[in-house]
Every structure is written in C-alpha cells, then in structure tokens.
C-alpha cells in the first residue's frame, strides 16, 4: 500500500525521552511546563500543541497479599486483581511514548471546517499551518485528546509524522533518536507483520498480556497509522478503550433537529394563526 507509520513497542521503551527531545528540537517547539508533576517520571503529562511526543510512566506494585496493587493511584481504591501477577515481577514499570495516532478515520480531520487538516501522500494526518484559522473545533473532536491549539500562534498543531523529513526519504526524528528502536517507522504492512510476530514472541516469553492497539480494529476510528504494543488495558495509558469517530453523530443530530423544526414551525404557525 505504501502507507507509512509508527510502531511503538512499549516493552522496549526505557523512558529516556530522547523521542520528546528530538521531536521538539527538529520541529522547533518551545519547552513547556518545567513542572515536576509527581506522576512517576512523566513531566509532560499529555500531548499538546507544543508536545508531539509524550512519554507516559505507570508504576505498578505487587501488594503484600500477592495481588496487583495500584493503590498509589487515585481513583483505584479497592482495585483488586487485574492482569494476573504482573508477569511474575514484584514491580512493573510501564513506559510508553504517546503520539498522534494518525487514524484511518480521523476525528480532527473530519471536523476541520477550513480544510487545513488533510491526509498527505504518506497517509498521515497533517495540519497545514498556513490555512488553519484557529477555530479549535479539532481539539474536542479528537477521541484520543491529541491535538491542541497553540495560544501564542493561534494555530492548532500536532505531530506531522515529520512530513518534511519523509519528503527527503529519512525517518521521523523520534524514530531516529530512539535508542532501543521502541519507535520504528516504516511501511505499515511490514510494521504490522513485525508487530504481530513480536506479540507472539512476547507471549512465549511469559508476557501473556501483550497485544496490539490500533491493528485490525473494528471501531469507527479504524486502524491507527501509529499503533502500539501494550501490556495493560488501554485506560492504564490514558488511551480510550473503544474510541468513537465523533462525526458519526452529525447525521442523527440533524435528523432529530429537522423533526423538531417541523414540529415547532407547525406549533408556532398554529399559535400565530387567527381566523378572520
């Protein structure tokens, strides 16, 4: 097919954040935050208009009774069991380099009223910065919470999958910088093949919870051109477990509005009518 994308294997990630740095350097993005969040080593917190690669960290401990304990994390009080016994480890430290998913059916692209967001010749979802007028409608339309609006430039911005580097036949900055090849760039069909083999290998090596997120999906968002290998359920990494394409709500909304409009017009007409 010739479409290219990312395969991010979280089991190889060492949390070095070279991807974050390379991305910011190549795309000349400003530093942001300077905050120590206390959420393990995650100080970027989320993707934004100026952070296009974000490394997430989740520390999982096994409690005294042998069950998985996530009691340190708010909102998980009383959580029991889950994914077996942390694969035999006493602690599990999940690291994942999050990025724009470049969805097959992209909520941001379908929402964009100016046509700024397009799918380029490499199959990636790209925001044309000279067309975007900053309406911000793409921002709540992304089911993954990826794209943001830059309050200083006024434009919406996100990962471009290094469109400019791809045009010269070189791989994106994050893939280039990743020391463990947790982030791999290439032909999507080849990547998916490799990824499936990797899942099989991991399961043979006593990581039974390995799976692919964004491959062979039956959701309205479709397959993700930047897909992941995860070992916990998606919500652990702040990913939606069943993402929806929001634009599927457009037609039902207008049909319901049309019915209401018909009723209200008749009702108003009858009310205003005065027989002679």
């Amino acid at each position, binding site marked *: 097919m010739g479409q290219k994308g990312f395969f991010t294997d979280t089991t190889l990630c060492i949390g070095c954040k070279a991807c974050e740095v390379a991305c910011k350097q190549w795309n000349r993005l400003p530093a942001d935050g300077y905050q120590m969040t206390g959420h393990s080593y995650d100080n970027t917190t*989320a993707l934004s208009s100026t952070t296009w690669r974000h490394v997430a960290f989740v520390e999982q401990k096994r409690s005294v009774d042998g069950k998985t304990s996530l009691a340190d994390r708010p909102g998980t009080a009383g959580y029991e069991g889950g994914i077996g016994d942390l694969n035999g480890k006493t602690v599990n430290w999940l690291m994942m380099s999050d990025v724009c998913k470049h969805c097959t059916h992209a909520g941001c692209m379908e929402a964009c009223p100016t046509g700024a967001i397009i799918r380029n010749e490499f199959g990636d979802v790209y925001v044309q910065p000279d067309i975007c007028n900053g309406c911000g409608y793409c921002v709540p339309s992304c089911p993954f919470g990826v794209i943001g609006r830059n309050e200083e430039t006024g*434009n919406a911005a996100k990962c471009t999958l290094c469109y400019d580097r791809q045009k010269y036949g070189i791989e994106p900055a994050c893939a280039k910088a990743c020391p463990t090849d947790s982030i791999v760039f290439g032909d999507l069909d080849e990547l998916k093949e490799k990824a499936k083999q990797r899942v099989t290998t991991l399961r*043979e090596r006593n990581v039974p919870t390995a799976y692919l997120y964004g491959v062979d999906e039956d959701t309205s968002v479709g397959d993700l051109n930047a897909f992941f290998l995860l070992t916990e359920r998606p919500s652990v990494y702040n990913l939606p*477990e069943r993402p929806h394409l929001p634009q599927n709500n457009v037609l039902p*909304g207008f049909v319901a*509005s049309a019915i209401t409009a018909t*009723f209200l017009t008749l009702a*108003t007409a009858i009310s205003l009518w005065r027989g002679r």
Partner: protein
Amino acid sequence: MNNHHDQQAQNAGGIATLLQPARRGTLSATDQPRIGEQWTGQPETYYNLPLLKKAHWGWEIITYFFLGGVGGGSYLAATLADFFGLKRDQPLVRAGRYLSLACMLASPIFLIMDLGRPERFHHMLRILKFRSAMSLGSWGITFFGLCCGLTAAHQMAKDGLLNWFPFMARTMRALPVKAIESIGALFGLFVASYTGVLLSSTAVPIWARAKHLLGPLFLTSGLSTGLSALSLILSLGRFKGQHDTLERLDRAEMITTTTELGLIVTLIPILGPLAKPLFRGKTGILFTIGTIGGGLLSPLLLKLGWRMNKKATSRSLTISASLLTLIGGVILRAVWILAGRISADNPRDIHYYNALERP
C-alpha cells in the same frame, strides 16, 4: 513457535485467556482483544489526568450561540406572521426582520473574535465539508445572513428608511420577499439548531451522549428566546395595540417552553451519570435555578396562572416573563459550554461513554 488458528477460533475463550499465563505455543498473534471488544472490569485512569482536550470556547461563543438562536427564531416568527398577512401583526413582522438582522450582523463579530487567527476567518468558506458541523454552519450563517439582509432591506425600503438612496429603495421594495423568507426561514432553523449538533459531534461525553437532543434543545431555546425577544420589543412600544399579537406570541412561547422542558427531562435518563455537571456544583446551580427554574418554569407558570385567572395579559407580566426567558436562554448556552469542559476533563466519563455507544 507460531500456531495458525483460523479466524473463527481466534477469539475462542475471549479475553479471559489473556488473564492467565500464556500456554506456550498455543497463542498466535491474532489472539488479542481488539479495541472493539469489551475489556472486563472497571477501566483505569492515568493519574486521573484528562484523556481528552476540552474546547477553548468562552463567552464569545456563548454569546454567539444565544444570538444565533434569537436570530433564527425571530426570523421564523416574522416569516409566519408575514405569510398570514394580518395588518395588526405588521409591527411583529417589522420587529422580527430588524431583530434577526441585528443578530446576524453581530454574530460574525463574536465568531471572528474567538478565532485563534481572526484575520483568516474567510478560510471557513474555502470548502464545504458535510461531515463537519462547523463547515455546514459557516455556510449556513452566510446564507441566513444574506436572507436576513435582503428581508430587512425590503422592510427598510417599505418603512422609508432608504429614501436617501432611491435606486436602492426601489430595488429592495421589488424583492420577491415571500420567496426569500421561505428559504431564509429554513436557513434560520438550521442556524438555530446546528450549534447543538456541533457540540454533540465531538468526543466530549456529555455532549456526544446527547446527540439526538442537543440540536433540538438549542433550536427550541432559540425559538423560545426569539419569540420572547419579540414580545419584549413589542411590549416596550404601544402596548394596547399589540394586545392580540402578544396574546398569540404568548401561546407560541408556552408551547416552545414546554417542549424545552420535555427535552431537558428526556436528557436525564439518557445522560445518566454523565449529567452530573448539569445538576451538581456551580454549573448545576446555574442550570437548575437559572435555566429550568428561572428561564422555563417561572415564565411558564406565570403565564399559565395569569390565563387561569382569566386576566388580560399585562405589560409588566410580558416584560418580566420575556426577560426571564431570555436570561434563561443565555444561561442554558453557558451551562452546556461549561459542562463540556468538566466532562472533557473527566477520564472516567470518557470510558463510561465509550463503553455505552456502538463503536
């Protein structure tokens, strides 16, 4: 070692097989839960951090939502009154035409102010994208604005306001105004409703879950506030002459208000736990006391009470009821924008909503 399962067998045992240690050599890479399948148990959160990004919209958009509704609603009322052709309804027709023009002149100002790059506002008209409620809406307000302009210009010509420019006066008087009104009314109904569809066509749970109701709700509120604005304007003028017109406007307002209450009641079971921002906290107070109590129940009960006592509608009653409805309408728009922020910030809401809907 790779075992080959055929597609039918791949999900045998389902997700439960993943919760046990792998049986060596018996799982293939296709044995995985797709996103479309249900994960068992409660979803996690990532430090309770938001999963989505909220819209930046603030008072400019709240104001525009309100004005768009009043514009569409008042244009519809003026059109219907014009078609019925009663002489004593002429002030209603005039007020409706001028009010809708005022609303559609002011609306783009607030929309453009809200843009991150206001100077590129015209980029909205580069394309027409049927899957984008904002693209449809941009074209909708363009055409509705045009119809409002032509209809109001015709009215101005009839009222002698264009006599300083005789050519314009003649041309505007000669416009096929009933045809323009028919088309304009349709666009007006669209403009009053599409903003609700726009909100519900996002990933924000409280908005998206209400996809069948937000468009209708905003439309009903738009008509209600449009009618109330017209009642207010007519009441501030020569009251006695408008008595009959106001009586009939009243009827329409009561039907619209009741419809709006019905839609809100329907929302509650559909939203379920997602409705918390509407009924808890500051937004909850605004919604229950501001919109439901003050903007809907109060004017409705006032009018019903007055009618049951068979008293003639008084000027102060009409003015009070109209103001209550108008303020309630502003609060309604504000609450939905604020509730959307709260909903987008809550990761549990997203997982709850995603699990409910078909993928």
